[in-house]
């Protein structure tokens, strides 16, 4: 039994990592009317009810839109930025790296408040627009970092070889660089998607009439209705994230890039 301490640590780790997940799965599968664990009998009615709640449907679509298009925009900005930071010795490149990483360092709640105070209120930005900007900025650091690290292994002479074989610089990028970093790009997309989708603090301030991201909507729902549908929805979202990561791992060894 000399391995006992190791087993205890392992057990505790798994309990705290997977435990909450198991709890929400069962709490959502309750047959009762209140959120409780252990559940009051088992049924799938709350899982079905989630799909009938109008506001969840709207906020889910908003969150999906932000996660997909915010991340795509971040990649559109982040891939060229990562390329430039990797390939060229730029004046002030350290400063650029820091600025790009800032959204991770600055507490989200401050970012949200700042956007509300300086974009939405004085400039009449719509909440959706502000949310889109916030989510893009939030995902940008991941896009730059993950794409950078997959670009690190790519030697510059490969592009020169492509140019000497007749490519323009742009073709060298699309035909040689991009195919070789596509794993990193997809990894950055998934990481960005999940980060954006689960984002709470920034979005907290940025909600208006009828415009809420899903996590904020769930918080709001719980304040009024304490039923197991929120747990059921959480479990469904967790399964969605798992499925995305699983597919990515099978397709291109996602874990290599994170």
């Amino acid at each position, binding site marked *: 039994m000399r391995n006992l301490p190791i087993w205890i640590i392992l057990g505790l780790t798994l309990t705290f990592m997977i435990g909450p997940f198991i709890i929400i799965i069962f709490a959502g599968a309750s047959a009762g009317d209140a959120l409780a664990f252990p559940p009051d009998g088992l049924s799938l009615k709350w899982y079905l009810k989630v799909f009938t709640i109008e506001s969840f449907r709207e906020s889910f679509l908003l969150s999906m839109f932000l996660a997909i298009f915010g991340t795509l925009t971040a990649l559109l900005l982040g891939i060229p930025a990562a390329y430039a930071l990797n390939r060229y010795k730029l004046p002030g490149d350290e400063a650029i790296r820091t600025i790009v990483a800032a959204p991770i360092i600055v507490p989200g709640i401050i970012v949200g408040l700042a956007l509300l105070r300086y974009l939405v209120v004085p400039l009449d930005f719509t909440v959706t627009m502000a949310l889109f900007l916030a989510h893009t900025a939030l995902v940008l650091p991941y896009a730059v970092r993950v794409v950078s690290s997959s670009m690190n292994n790519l030697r510059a*002479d*490969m592009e020169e*070889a492509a140019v*000497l074989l007749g*490519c323009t610089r742009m073709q060298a990028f699309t035909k040689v660089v991009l195919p*070789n970093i596509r794993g990193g790009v997809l990894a950055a997309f998934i990481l960005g998607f999940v980060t954006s989708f689960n984002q709470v603090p920034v979005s907290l301030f940025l909600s208006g009439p009828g415009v809420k991201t899903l996590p904020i909507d769930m918080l709001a729902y719980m304040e009024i209705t304490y039923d197991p549908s929120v747990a059921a929805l959480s479990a469904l979202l967790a399964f969605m994230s798992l499925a995305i990561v699983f597919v990515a791992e099978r397709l291109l060894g996602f874990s290599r890039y994170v």
Partner: protein
Amino acid sequence: MSDAIVRLSKLTLSYGKTIAVPDLDLDIMEGELIALLGPSGCGKTTTMRAIAGLLTPTSGTVEINGRDVTRIAANKRGIGLVFQSYALFPHLSAFENVAFGLRLKRMPEAEIKSRTDAGIATVGLSGFEARKPAEMSGGQQQRLALARSLVMEPKVLLLDEPLSNLDARLRLEMRTELQRVQKETGVTMVFVTHDQAEALALADRIVLMKDGKIEQLGTPSELYAEPATAFAAEFMGFENIFRVEGDSLVSKSGRLQLTYEADAPMLGWRPSGVPVGSGPHNGRVLASSFAGGHREYVLDSALGQIKADAPIETAEVQIGETVPFDLPKATARRLAA
């Protein structure tokens, strides 16, 4: 051999404020295999990159086939380059690597196929078409990189340290391979190397470079037998080079009276040109090593260390003993400073 296929005139290349190559003139003839030889930092790679168009000269011109291409982009010069790291495209198969440039030309598929197959066959890689570069050995990757450049039928093929990443056995094999391919295709090859043995073995002509300037230009046998300067002589294996002052040789350690008139600023000897066992000078043996056909001695003399090779038949001298040696006029190479 007709006119120059590459002509560099007053070519000056710089990185920021550092001038890597000042005012270089060089003609490369059609169909020749020419080596740019020199230590690292001598400007040989810089010169090669300027020919390829990867580097824009500060001043001067690059002409290819009589046409000024100084301002022509690298992708329009029709020049091939085999990179030291091979720079193969890891996401493409061997076939697609070779076909890459042909596809950019929008050739008909059948022609791409036949030219790619022919290119792959030329370098002896038939059967490896489906492999990814990572699944090939260093030597195979080298051949693949060669094929990828050759199928484009370049006017000039540049090779950056083509043998440096290979082990000794493969290096020898690749050397003959390069010569064979050059004979077969007739392509003008310019290769960059820091290894004089490689340059001597492969090249029709050698351009020895130092500090961005041409130190000496000639055939391998000319360079080997008649190096003009101390730098060239050192590169060609003259390990004993000394300054001449009056009728003496001078080094940092001291001076040595010669028995004959030396009418050159410097004199140099290969170790094989320094007889051990007889002669007017004396040296103490510092090191001795067996090298097959001869024995290599390092002697401590009035001039400091002297390297001398003695035939294996002569009696061995033990370390610490003092032996007579000679720096004869007959084997001395007269050198410019």
